[in-house]
């Protein structure tokens, strides 16, 4: 065991655990509201007519929109990383995400580790969120690092 790593971290037992998939629909109104909130009302996100004549043949969603989906809860943990400090975010698309389509979403806890920080041990919870078409074709993969401060760890009884 390396220095600074704890041997008894309850979070570790969630590694490899997934939520049950949740059905989401990319709603036109939700995309418009989101595009406006991020200050990017691109016609391809909000104007059906303009999007219809584009190469996409219809409206698409902004790159960070999948953050708004429901991914379900990992039993015993809830939605991984929610309410923690957001350390890193990565999203990778296989293709654009279309307005109106149905996306099946789930989340998996892929790692948890601790490092010694200035004010005590810091926890890092890595989760992977996946969006698939109803046919099972992957649309996007999202990886988030949630950071737990020493105070947050204490709240969890770590």
């Amino acid at each position, binding site marked *: 065991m390396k220095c600074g790593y704890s041997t008894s971290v309850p979070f570790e037992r969630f590694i490899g655990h997934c939520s049950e998939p949740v059905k989401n629909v990319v709603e036109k109104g*939700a995309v418009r*509201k*989101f595009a*406006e*909130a*991020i*200050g*990017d009302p*691109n016609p*391809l996100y909000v104007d059906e007519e303009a999007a219809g004549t*584009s*190469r996409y043949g219809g409206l*698409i969603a*902004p*790159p*960070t929109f999948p*953050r*708004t989906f429901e991914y379900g809860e990992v039993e015993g943990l809830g939605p991984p990383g929610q*309410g923690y400090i*957001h*350390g*890193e*975010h*990565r*999203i*990778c*698309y296989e293709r*654009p995400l279309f307005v109106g389509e149905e996306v099946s979403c789930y989340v998996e806890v892929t790692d948890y580790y601790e490092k010694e920080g200035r004010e005590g041990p810091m926890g890092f919870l890595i989760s992977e969120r996946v969006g698939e078409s109803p046919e099972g074709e992957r649309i996007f993969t999202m990886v988030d690092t949630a950071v737990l401060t020493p105070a947050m760890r204490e709240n969890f009884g770590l």
Partner: protein
Amino acid sequence: MSVPKPAWNVGDELESRTLPPVTRLQLIKYAGASGDYNPIHTVDEAAEEAGLGGVIAHGMLTAATMGLPFSPYLEHGYIRELEVRFSGMVYVGDEVTIGGHVSEREDSEEGCVYTFEVYASNGESTVASGTVSFLVFEGPCS
């Protein structure tokens, strides 16, 4: 088509942009649109309890902002990958500057994939940095 198909070279800089000061209303709107109602982004007391000097912007709002420079080219391609590391807080009143440069470009089956190193800064320090891979459909990298 309103904007010509882009062709960047490695080393090309994105024109940096400074956005209007972050407002509380903007954070309330983003909370509603994203479903992220963590009160440290909207309620002063909650932010103080969390040891912050005031409400802070959602990290994912800053991440979305880092995609703005690519929006004009959306008719020619899209962001295939966005990777962001959060390194600082954005407070109400902060003016966030975003920018970046092309670090790599590569032909793929679908077109040319440009990789950009991107950043967001609040004037004093970098609040987020990362990479954007932007796919321009059709044709090899020119």
